[in-house]
C-alpha cells in the first residue's frame, strides 16, 4: 500500500473524455441524476442513439440544458441552484415526491463526485470533517439510486489517491458505489478489489496500482 504523494502524476483523460465514457454506459431510456460539478458534463456527450431523462432532486424531471441569458427564470433551477430548462414531457413535483424517485429506487443511475472511494464501495464526498457540515441530497442518492457511478480525478489536488482500502473521511454511504470513472481508468467495485474495466491507453497497470491504495486487477 502506498502513502506517497504523486505531485508529478501522469496526465490522464480530459474531463470531456471521462464524461463521454460515462455517457456511453448510460442505456437508452435511463432516468439519471447527475451531481453538481464535473458530472454535469455527461449530458453533453449522450449520443443520438438514446434518450436519457435527467432528474434534479429539487422536483424536476426532464431537465434540459442551461437557458440563454434572456430566458433565465429564477423559479426554474437545478439542485445546484443554477438556472436550467425543462424539456417536453418533463414534470415538476414537490420534494417528498422527488426524493421518492431517488429513495424508492426509480433513478437508474446517479453520477457523483468523490473525495474517497473504498474497495468495498464506501463513498466519502460530503465532508472533510472541517467547516460547516452540509450534505444536501448525496446520502439519499447513493442509498437509493439503482447504480451509483463516481466521476473523479484519480488523485486529489495534493496528489493523494482517492481510491483507498478504507475511507478516512466521513462516509456518504457504505458499500454503495458500483463503478468509478477517473482520468486514469474505469474501475468496478468487486469483492476482489478494484477491477479494471478500461485503463488509460498511456498508463500501465503497474502505474495504476502505484497511484491506487488497495489491489487493482484485470
Amino acid at each position, binding site marked *: 500500500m502506498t502513502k506517497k504523494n504523486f505531485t508529478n502524476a501522469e496526465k490522464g483523460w480530459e474531463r470531456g473524455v471521462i464524461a463521454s465514457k460515462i455517457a456511453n454506459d448510460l442505456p437508452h431510456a435511463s432516468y439519471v441524476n447527475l451531481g453538481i460539478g464535473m458530472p454535469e458534463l455527461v449530458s453533453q456527450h449522450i449520443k443520438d442513439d*438514446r434518450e436519457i431523462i435527467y432528474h434534479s432532486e429539487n422536483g424536476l*424531471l426532464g431537465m434540459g440544458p442551461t437557458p440563454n441569458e434572456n430566458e433565465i427564470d429564477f423559479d426554474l433551477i437545478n439542485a445546484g441552484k443554477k438556472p436550467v430548462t425543462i424539456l417536453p*414531457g418533463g414534470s415538476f413535483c414537490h420534494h*417528498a415526491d422527488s426524493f*421518492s424517485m431517488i429513495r424508492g429506487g426509480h433513478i437508474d443511475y446517479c453520477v457523483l463526485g468523490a473525495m474517497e472511494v473504498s474497495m468495498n464501495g464506501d463513498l466519502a464526498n460530503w465532508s472533510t470533517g472541517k467547516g460547516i457540515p452540509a450534505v444536501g441530497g448525496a446520502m439519499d442518492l447513493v442509498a437509493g439510486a439503482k447504480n451509483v457511478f463516481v466521476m473523479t480525478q484519480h488523485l486529489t489536488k495534493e496528489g493523494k489517491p482517492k481510491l483507498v482500502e478504507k475511507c478516512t473521511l466521513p462516509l456518504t454511504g457504505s458499500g454503495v458505489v458500483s463503478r468509478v470513472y477517473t482520468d486514469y481508468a474505469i474501475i468496478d467495485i468487486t469483492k476482489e478489489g478494484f477491477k479494471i474495466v478500461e485503463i488509460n491507453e498511456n498508463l500501465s497497470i503497474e502505474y495504476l496500482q502505484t497511484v491506487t491504495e488497495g489491489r487493482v486487477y484485470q
Partner: protein
Amino acid sequence: MQINKIKTEIAEMLSDVFDGATIMVGGFGEAGSPIELLHGLIDHGAKDLTIIANNSGNGRVGLGALIGQKQVKKVICSFARSAKGITFQELYNKGEIELEVVPQGTLAERIRAAGSGIPAFYTATAVGTPLAIGKEEKIFNGKKYILEEALNADFALIKADVSDRYGNLTFKKTARNFNPIMCMAAKQSLIQVRKLIEPHQTNPENVITPGIFVKKIIEIDNPIIETNAIEEGMIYP
C-alpha cells in the same frame, strides 16, 4: 432514438406477468378500474396471483371476473364486501381464497412507502384493534403506534385519463385514488389510458404520475364502465 412506452396489444402489456405474481389493481369501487387490462390478465392465464386493491371486485367483469377464474390465491384490501360482489364472496365462504384486511389509509400509506423506499413506518391507525395483533408497538410522545410494513408489487394495472409516450399521466376526478401510489410501488406499472397526447402537450405543472413510474401504456379510448357492464349482464370471458 426516442423513449416510447406505448404498446398496441394488451398481450404485449402483460407479457412479463408470471404465476405467483403480486399485482396491484388501481381504482376505488369502479372509478379508475382497469377492466380491459384485467380481462387481458384472464386471457393471459397467470395463476396463484396476489391482488392488492381497495376492493374485491363486482359482478363477473374486471377484478370480479379474474377472481371468478380462480387465478387469485389472495386478496389484500380494505373492503371486500360489496352489494354487487359475487366471485370473491363465493370463494371466501368456501375457504378457497385468502384475505388480508388492511385499513384503507394504512393500505395507501403502505403502498406509498413501497414506492418511496420506506420499508416500514409507525401509525396510530388500528392501535387497540384486532388488526394490530402481532404488530410491533412503540410509544412516541406518550402515544402508542404500531409498525406497518411497505406493500410492494411486481405489477400494477392502472387506468388513467391522458398520457404521453413517456407515461406522464393525469386522472379524472376521483378516478385518481390509488393509481398514482400504485404506479410508484410496482416494479412494472401497466397503464390503460383513454387518450394519448404528444409530449409537448403535457403541462409539466399538472402531471400527476410522472413517466418515471410508468413501464407500458396502451390506449383504450372507450373503456368498459363496470356498472353499465354489470347491468347489461356482461360476463367475462
